[in-house]
């Protein structure tokens, strides 16, 4: 028996040892064993891609979120453009923008960042990125000393917005061919990657030559923790100093505790039900209005999903949101009135209205990976629509695109990032413009199309915002979709962590301003 126990212990110790970390983390948990005065920040993120190559998909988000990568220009926490690698920029005509690159910027490997380096980085992204949605039509990019000039082939209103996308994080293109580059990219941010293990996390050390001066944190341990409950508990245990996307249900644990700082507010995700406009009854505005009046969105948002009730595509933090109140607040009496006017009545006493002899039963589709929220809201709607004489069939599918293109639905659950580059054009155009690719419901509205056309040509930011708000109001008034709720973004930090801001875009979590007491 002793032999058996000994063998078990030896095997387990050997296995624990032989599968140890290939690249040992330099810093222990909770600062144990760390060098004197070394400031270590442990943060948890809920999403990691398999590598850190910013031109691949959305991988660049890990770089911007953790203060590793910087762009020429970024969108700050107030949704204003903030020159970063570029000290300033100026649009000299409708095709040409000139950027003055900061004098004292260096890459993590010590190479100096000048206009030539920025040009190489941007051209590399345009050349190899799979993100066609953020590319722009280039006539020429020229570099002279610290002056970078980008000329587009056509007037391109969202050039700066696109350049702020993580795809265009400035990297040292001269070393980007190295096979380790995608795991340890050479960028300019406040922190540089020391170790990166997909599905586990990364260790970052401060960039001692960062252009902003000394960084207030020496080491950042970024942990990949997918489960929201686990993120909450590691915050409570002190294992983690900063966590994002803490479950709204757990927020109360931190909001009433002086040891934590909670920041929350709407992010850019909007959850909506796309309406199939090919259905004859959906062509009636009154019917669509009744659908809106018939549901209590505010309660869904507060009780089911802990979100913020939506009144249009853009939340109130965005400068192009709908200024007016929700056009169709919960009002079942009004819904009944509208349905009666449409001659949709229940003739057989089964509680469901009919149209042309057919029971009005709406098909509500969500995707199986949308989770419980989509289903729970569907059930709440089923119950409330029953009160106004409409039936609802809730269906969860996997072949979502097939169903959407086949038109076998009335209401289609969708989740969109409504303004990924802090500009309204993308969402209005991709989702609602007549015959656009994301317009599965075949919505068509000449007024909205005109707004999209105007956005194509308009270069002035304020005018674009005004047009965006106009488009959003058209969608709300015309019930192009049922806009349900905006997701609430959260960031929770221990009180000893400073300089952390909540960015509505969630493209950034920490940057050069982060500090630790």
């Amino acid at each position, binding site marked *: 028996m002793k032999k058996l126990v000994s063998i078990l212990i030896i095997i387990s110790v050997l*296995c624990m040892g032989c599968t*140890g970390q290939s690249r040992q983390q330099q810093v222990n948990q909770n600062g144990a064993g760390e060098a004197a005065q070394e400031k270590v920040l442990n943060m948890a993120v809920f999403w990691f891609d398999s590598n850190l190559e910013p031109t691949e*998909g959305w991988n660049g988000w890990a770089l911007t979120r953790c203060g590793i990568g910087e762009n020429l220009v970024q969108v700050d926490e107030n949704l204003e453009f903030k020159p970063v690698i570029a000290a300033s920029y100026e649009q000299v005509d409708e095709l040409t923008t000139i950027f003055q690159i900061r004098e004292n910027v260096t890459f993590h490997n010590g190479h100096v960042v000048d206009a030539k380096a920025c040009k190489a980085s941007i051209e590399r992204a345009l050349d190899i990125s799979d993100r066609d949605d953020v590319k722009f039509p280039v006539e020429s990019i020229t570099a002279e000393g610290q002056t970078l000039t980008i000329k587009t082939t056509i007037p391109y209103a969202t050039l700066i917005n696109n350049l702020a996308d993580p795809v265009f994080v400035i990297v040292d293109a001269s070393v980007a061919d190295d096979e380790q580059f995608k795991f340890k990219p050479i960028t300019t941010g406040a922190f540089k990657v020391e170790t990166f293990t997909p*599905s586990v996390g990364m260790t970052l050390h401060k960039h001692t030559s960062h252009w902003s001066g000394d960084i207030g944190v020496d080491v950042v341990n970024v942990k990949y*923790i997918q489960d929201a*409950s686990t993120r909450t508990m*590691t915050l409570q245990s002190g*294992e983690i100093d900063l966590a994002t996307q803490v479950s709204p249900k757990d927020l109360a644990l931190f909001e009433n505790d002086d040891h934590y700082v909670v920041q929350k507010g709407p992010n850019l995700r909007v959850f909506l039900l796309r309406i199939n406009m090919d259905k004859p009854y959906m062509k009636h505005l009154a019917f669509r209005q009744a659908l809106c009046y018939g549901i209590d969105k505010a309660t869904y948002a507060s009780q089911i999903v802990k979100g913020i009730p939506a009144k249009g595509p853009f939340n109130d933090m965005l400068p192009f949101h709908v200024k007016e109140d929700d056009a169709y607040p919960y009002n079942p009496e009004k819904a009944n009135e509208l349905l009666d006017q449409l001659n949709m009545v229940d003739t057989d006493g089964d509680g469901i209205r009919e149209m042309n002899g057919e029971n009005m039963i709406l098909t509500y589709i969500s*995707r199986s990976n949308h989770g419980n929220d989509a289903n729970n809201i569907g059930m709440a709607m089923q119950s409330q629509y029953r009160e106004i004489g409409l039936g609802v069939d809730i269906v969860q599918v996997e072949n979502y695109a097939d169903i959407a293109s086949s038109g076998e639905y009335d209401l289609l659950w969708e989740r969109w990032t409504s303004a990924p580059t802090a500009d309204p054009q993308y969402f209005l155009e991709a989702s609602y413009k007549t015959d656009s690719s994301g317009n599965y419901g075949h919505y068509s509205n000449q007024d909205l199309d005109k707004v999209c056309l105007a956005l194509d040509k308009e270069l002035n930011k304020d005018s674009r915002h005004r047009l965006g708000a106009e488009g959003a109001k058209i969608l709300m008034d015309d019930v192009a979709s049922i806009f349900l709720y905006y997701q609430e973004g959260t960031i929770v930090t221990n009180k000893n962590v400073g300089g952390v801001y909540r960015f509505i875009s969630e493209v950034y979590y920490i940057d050069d301003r982060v500090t630790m007491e």
Partner: protein
Amino acid sequence: MRKYIISRGIQLIIVMLLASFITFLLTYISPSDPAEMMLTAHDVIPTEELLEKTREEMGLNDPFIVQYGNWLIGVLRGNLGYSSSEREQVAVVLGSRMLMTIRLAVAAIVLLIVFSLSLGVLSAVKIHTFIDQVIKGISFAGISMPSFWLGLILIYYFVVKQRWFTITNPYDLNSVILPALTLAIPLSGRYIRQIRAAVLEQYTEDYVVGARARGIHEMRIMKKHILPNALKSIITLLGLSIAVLLGGTVIVENIFSWPGLGSMALNAVTYRDYALLQGYVLFMAFIYVSINFLVDVTTQLLDPRVRLGGYQDDV
């Protein structure tokens, strides 16, 4: 023995082929579109053009048999393919995840054997006493506890309240204990009862009664006679448990952010990552057949009456 190993080798190839084919077929006929799954993971509502381009890149436009054939030819050349969700060679992904799963599985198996052996034997020795009742209660509780609940309770008590353990660094021994316990406790519940029953069965055997009559010490009877014979009956069960643990455990891995095969398989299914899913299935088929083979060999070593391929009559 050689003939047996050859036949097992052939069996392994057949099982792996069948498993991979069936998995490929099931994934193929499932209504979801891997290209769409991958794109929508990032909140992109894909355009038809983008979908088509992605399908082409992923080789999804070829007929089923061509897709399967291409994959199989690649495997025979030692190339398990490229994971679309992990953007990495399947072999690399499997390799890194496998190490972490082995690490967790070994820890869980050690705890499982220690718990179940000690409590199972104690329960049998102290039959019909208060201790026996308590151990039976522990065993039932272990079986009844859902892993996710147990995992969260362990985290809450030992990480949040007591701060004895950490869970965010899987390379640290301190972070292995709780997930290993979460896996071991429910399994132990089953094993304690099995071991208790097996030991009690041996207690009534003539050779045990004879040994007692000859005045041999109870502990010696237990170590030399009862335990080896009792353990034979649970070797097969243990083999299956080892195979399950080596396949990764989705729920526990998710709760503890453990980067093993279980969470990888879940992602592969979520994103319909054919190549990664196929690689995982191949690996699992290999593990199950190999573990079965080892169980057979171990059983024969413990009981020479057993012949590989069936029992030999004691005539």
